[in-house]
């Protein structure tokens, strides 16, 4: 035990399964597990839509909500939940020195403008001049602020008053790992005592489906849970999700009487060019470095795309109970690792793993004191964290 241990004192989680740790725990333990799916929005793809959320509860000013697009609202909302659970929300003294690291992708586009431009541009005698004219007149001036990656963090500062610092990491799944990793490293080294870290993803937008479809990363057959899906062509189903953590040093949490949910005992990140076996070798090194206890279960953020088959094969060599977060609420890119980390944290806080999400997941025997969150990006990047009892 060290004063500089990284303790999780708040989680804000919102997904297709609902809002908050309790709703998620209940949904994950329902038998049989029932995902929330939407196969109508962007066929042939299936996505996991966000549960109904009363954004007013964490973003009281309508003006603020209007200035954001969905991904920012989801993140700002989840950040508020995390701050609330940690007892930091509204505490100006704490917020003034709270450091924020957000993992973010790009923001929403104006779909109607995109479609009008694409439908019209081929018919123009002077397509470049016409494009300039359309964009000058059709783009909402404030839309840019809903698109810039760093503006989710900007909105969290504005709505919740987190002003100690603000950094945004990009890079899809790996950015979620790095946000937590850098926060933990800074905590351990005394480069800050209190962090708000997380990510949010809005899957209910066509542009992100187009992007991932270009790489053949999306599932086009009917949805299936991850293991069953991998027997049948694989592919990712995107999921809307926001997940933030308040992470603070043990000494800081103790001094203000904050109740820890769990401890991040270690976190590792690596990269490779994804030649066969390279990612598994990275993961094995990370596993050996973290040295999880014999009772530790694994939550994987595997998407169904990329190296998922290799990842599942490697996980099976561990002989540990494994749960696939993507079966629960889809693949939320930057938020995939934070979401898996949240499920690992909930499992440790409950002292047990949640129920299997499909027949291919083995039931867990007995109690656990540790859980591992594993995250391989759908293209690149491998990360792993060990969560232990506080």
């Amino acid at each position: 035990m060290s004063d500089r241990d990284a303790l999780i004192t708040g989680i804000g989680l919102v997904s297709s399964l609902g809002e908050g740790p309790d709703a998620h725990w209940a949904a994950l333990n329902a038998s049989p597990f029932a995902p929330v799916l939407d196969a109508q929005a962007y066929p042939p793809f299936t996505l996991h839509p966000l549960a109904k959320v009363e954004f007013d509860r964490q973003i009281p000013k309508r003006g603020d909500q209007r200035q954001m697009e969905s991904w920012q609202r989801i993140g700002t909302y989840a950040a508020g939940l995390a701050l609330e659970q940690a007892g930091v929300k509204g505490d100006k003294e704490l917020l003034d020195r709270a450091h924020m690291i957000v993992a973010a992708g790009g923001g929403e586009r104006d779909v109607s403008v995109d479609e009008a431009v694409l439908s019209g541009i081929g018919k123009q005698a002077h397509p470049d001049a016409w494009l300039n004219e359309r964009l000058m007149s059709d783009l909402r001036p404030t839309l840019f602020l809903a698109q810039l990656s760093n503006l989710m963090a900007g909105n969290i500062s504005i709505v919740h008053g987190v002003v100690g610092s603000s950094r945004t990491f990009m890079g899809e799944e790996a950015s979620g790992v790095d946000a937590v990793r850098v926060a933990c490293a800074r905590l351990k080294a005394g480069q800050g005592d209190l962090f708000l870290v997380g990510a949010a993803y809005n899957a209910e937008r066509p542009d992100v489906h187009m992007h991932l479809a270009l790489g053949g990363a999306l599932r086009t057959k009917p949805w299936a849970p991850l293991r069953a899906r991998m027997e049948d062509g694989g592919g990712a189903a995107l999921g809307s999700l926001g997940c933030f953590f308040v992470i603070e040093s043990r000494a800081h949490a103790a001094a203000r009487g904050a109740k820890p949910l769990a401890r991040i005992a270690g976190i590792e990140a690596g990269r490779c060019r994804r030649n066969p076996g390279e990612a598994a070798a990275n993961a094995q090194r990370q596993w050996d470095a973290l040295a999880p206890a014999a009772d530790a279960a694994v939550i994987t953020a595997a998407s169904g795309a990329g190296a998922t088959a290799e990842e599942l094969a490697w996980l099976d060599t561990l002989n540990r109970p494994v749960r696939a977060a993507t079966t629960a609420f889809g693949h939320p890119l930057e938020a995939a690792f934070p979401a898996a980390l949240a499920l690992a944290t909930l499992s440790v806080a409950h002292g047990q793993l949640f129920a299997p999400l499909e027949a291919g997941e083995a039931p867990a025997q007995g109690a656990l004191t540790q859980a591992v969150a594993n995250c391989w990006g759908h293209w690149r990047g491998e990360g792993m964290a060990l969560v232990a009892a506080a």
Partner: protein
Amino acid sequence: MAHTDRSGRPVVAVTGFGVVTSLGQGVEDNWRRLTAGESGIRRITRFPTDGLKTTIAGTVDFIPHEPPTVAALALRIAELAAEEAVAASGLKQDDVPGPLFLGFPPVEFEWPQRQAIGAASGANDHVGYAELFRGAATAQFRPMHAQTLFAYAPEMLADRFGTRGAPIVTSTACATGATAIQLGAEAIRRGETSVALCIGADASVNPESLIRFSLLSALSQSNDPPEQAAKPFSANRDGFVMAEGAGALVLEELDHALARGAKILGIVEGCGERADDFHRTRSSPDGKPIIGCIRAALADAGLGPEDIAYINAHGTGTPENDRMENLSVTTVFGEHAARIPISSNKSMIGHTLSAAGAVEAIFSLLTMQRGRIPPTINHRIPDPAIALDVVPNVARDADVARTMSNSFGFGGQTVSLVLAREPA
């Protein structure tokens, strides 16, 4: 005995840097033209500017890149700047023994790409996202998937330079390049690594990006002549000029650098940051976040205002930024403020956005190393409300031992760096 800073941490040295801007490729060309007060701002020729209010930018038009996207250009100039930095450091080009921290703009699809995907669907009337899905399913655009991931640029650069571990790509708007340096300095101070490659790069001059900034009323519309458009701290300043560029720095733990006989080009003594909770594009009217950021940088360096001999301003040339920077500098530096030269590189190279913090840190280091302060050009009509010594129009010889470099971003992210000529 190991060198440590005033707080007992490892000292962070700079052992290499490289730069590309609209003024040219490489440190020497840039420095010569910068101290000659030359502008890199020109008329945009990359695409037709019919109907646009702003038709100028500090584009980098002289670097071949494939595919013809701004993201590919940004990656290419990041690579060129890093090659120069690594060469200067004496490290191997493909074996940089530390992590990569990259400041980079969010990568987006461009219109010609969307049009190509739409065309592949076979649709010839309505082209919506359903048609784009069909076009995407043809699998002929596979490389575009990876190339438009945010992880693409850092992964390519990590492969190219053999950096260690997971690369980080960061965006804090106009403070991005400084954030990349701060991340590297922090990692060295933690003892995690002895070396870090920190890069800020940006190429964003395409129709949609230009129009978006234009719609926010952020850009200068003084199109004629282009080289006089960027006029920071002037009474008639009317916005910033979008620009492209890249700056790369090899940061290195001082003892590690000395042990291998590397030349010390400067020291990163302090990093300060704050977030602003006032507004998405405007600073708190009281200047509190910027003041807090500057003070945090001084505190991190263990220094007082009187220790700073030159300020490399954020100095965008927007009415708002320069007013707030003036307020903050005069508040923190008090009577000393009038005696500190403060100049804006952006008057010549424009606002290189995600690259600015890194590019301007390099110019700050050169200012100290070569004893010459680059001017703020186009300073013909001084703003009576700004009583700073902005080094108007002509470079000035000066003995500068310590510099502050400021970067303030949209979305309220602010970073200030304290850089020194040599170890304290």
